[in-house]
């Protein structure tokens, strides 16, 4: 049952992680949870990058890409939280369904 850990194992884990993140993204109403879902997706992506980097030719390029992904994740988290706090100030909620001034 327990075969030697290889590329496919990592890919499966990252696939599950991606699915969970996607679920949070499309079903949760709390803006912060949506943000967490995005972080999960980015992590899944990073696992993929590094796993491929290790099991294919050049390990370093993939890792550099992962660093850039992390950088973008940081920016995104900072700005998203700033926006969420701003929304909270204006609407007293972070429920994405309630924040619909533009829609109506």
């Amino acid at each position, binding site marked *: 049952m327990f075969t030697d850990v290889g590329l496919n194992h990592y890919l499966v884990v990252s696939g599950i992680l991606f699915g969970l993140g*996607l679920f949070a*993204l*499309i*079903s949760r109403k709390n803006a912060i949870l949506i943000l967490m879902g995005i972080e999960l997706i980015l992590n899944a992506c990073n696992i993929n990058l590094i796993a491929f980097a290790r099991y294919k030719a050049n390990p370093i390029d993939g890792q550099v890409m992962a660093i850039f992904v992390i950088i973008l994740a940081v920016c995104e988290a900072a700005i998203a939280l700033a926006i969420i706090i701003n929304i909270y100030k204006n609407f007293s909620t972070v429920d*994405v*369904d309630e924040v*619909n001034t533009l*829609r109506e």
Partner: protein
Amino acid sequence: MELIFKLSILILLLPLLSFVILIFFGKRIPRKGDWLANFLLFLNLALSFVVLALFLGEKKPLSFEFNWFTIGSFNISAGILIDSVSAIMLVVVNIVSSFVHLFSVKYMENDAKYSIYFAYLGLFTFSMLGIVLTNTILLMYVFWELVGLSSYLLIGFWYENKPPQEAAKKAFIVNRIGDVGFLTGIMILFFTLQTFNFSEIFNGVASGQLSGAWLTAAGILLFCGAVGKSAQFPLHVWLPDAMEGPTPVSALIHAATMVAAGVYMVSRIFIMLSADALTVIAYVGAVTAFISASIALTQNDIKRVLAYSTISQLGYMIMALGVGAMSYAMFHLVTHAFFKACLFLAAGSVIIGLHHVQDIREMGGLKKKMPLTYWTFLIATLALSGIPFTSGFLSKDSILSATMAFYHINGGVHIIIPVIAFLVAGMTAFYMFRLVIKTFLGEPRNTHAYEHCKESPVVMTLPLIVLSVLSFFAFYSLNPLDASGGWILSVMKTPESLLKGTQGLFSHIIEKIEYDEIVHHFHYTAMIISLIMAGTGILIAYLFYYWKKVNVGALVSRFKPVYNFLYNKWYFDELYGFAVVGLTLAVSRISKWFDNNIIDGIVNGSAYLTKKISGISGSFDKYFIDGLVNFCGFFVGAFGFIFKKFQTGKIQTYLTFLIIGIILLYLIFRTF
């Protein structure tokens, strides 16, 4: 890179610099930065003279280009082309623009958005210089749209009021209509010749890669852009409304920037236009010239009369291009730029003097109060009417002789073109002198406004003086009766058409040299007839309005229908309001009905159906196999739930559908 290109790029970028500085820091600079804009523009003027001098030293077209970007295997280049036309246009644009800047210092003083106004002027000048300098049609299109944008900003500068808003929108939208044609023309050129570069396009046309009906179509479509920008019939309606903008802006739009762009563009592509396209162009120009001149006869707003006269003169230029006299068209563009800018700025000076009175029925007798404005206005009027010893006489006369030559070569119904041209010459003289007499001569009709009126300060009169001096013949040709020996026409020659055989302009009948001789042959005939027409026009104007020998009121009431028809501008606005706007409304009403009844019907019907099915499933559930049908009902319910929420406006729902779409795509396209 040679000096001349460095200078050209500098000329292009200085107005942009003025725009950038003023838009961001305008309010923090002393005097809100007007000195900076003026300094940069006058520096630009000096530089453009240097470029012209350098060009005259070389006497051959110079171009410089670099690779801008690459898409696939297409290299899109950008660059600068300096030939006689663009070198002269540089000077013209910069002269008019810099004096408009100077004039605006006083005219716009105390305006809340003073610095933004100068920033916009800089942007406008930058975009026009871009059109003049570029050597690819793609970049020309980019700058073309920039001109459209900056004209929108300037016409709607006083957007707090309703009319400027409407006028700006109208100008923008009407221009877009023409630009659709322009863009389509560019696409035809690109798909057949795979290049945007003018010289490569011309090579392709000369080698016959693009010919026949496609070439004519491309020419006419590109001309559509000029129809919009240069306010030709049937898209001329935006220009009179553009008078809602500040008067110096009108001067800039009408003289050197926006409307000139269309004529300039057609002259750039002139050598690849087929005979059919040129005939269309000639008739559009002639019709425009006639319609707008006839409207100008009856208008009472000083700026509107000038606006219609601009359209009429642009019609002249377009007509000249159509009859094959490109150099005369550009010559008229140059001379017209100076005297029309002078007329507009003088009108601005009158408007400021009378505290924003624009109706000429309220004016009169201003000659005593504003002598400088009067004399400059009169000189420009003489130039516009085509009186000897003025620049307008030289250029107009050249165009008239070219129209006669056109008739002589082609014969038949083409006699319409010279007839219209001469008629319009007479009408121009009439309405311009009507304007002069009603504004400056006679007795003041509004004594209150007259009392408070005084001559404008020197920053306003100096541009007037310079521009009116530029309306004399000596700057263009030393012979006051014939421009063909003058420096400007000997530098700026009509190039030979690229097209061989029956497609081209002259080649199916005569050679170019012979054509020039025919034009020259008609020179004196045209001169005499045009003088008679202009003299008659002026005489009638004096009879009507100065000596009052003819009762104008009685004449008007006798020809009431005609007068109303002209006074209401041939009902073009109403026609468009009915045809275009009404049609759009009708179409949207039909769409609304379709939406309400059919689409909603489908949605409601399917919702109803879904409801029915789930109802049936529910009864199944009650009476038959519970467990299985339970799931069915649930599934249908869930489906209906999603279906109902199809347009929720929630991003998460859309994301869900997006993922469903990915799944479906996978199922459709999977390879195993």
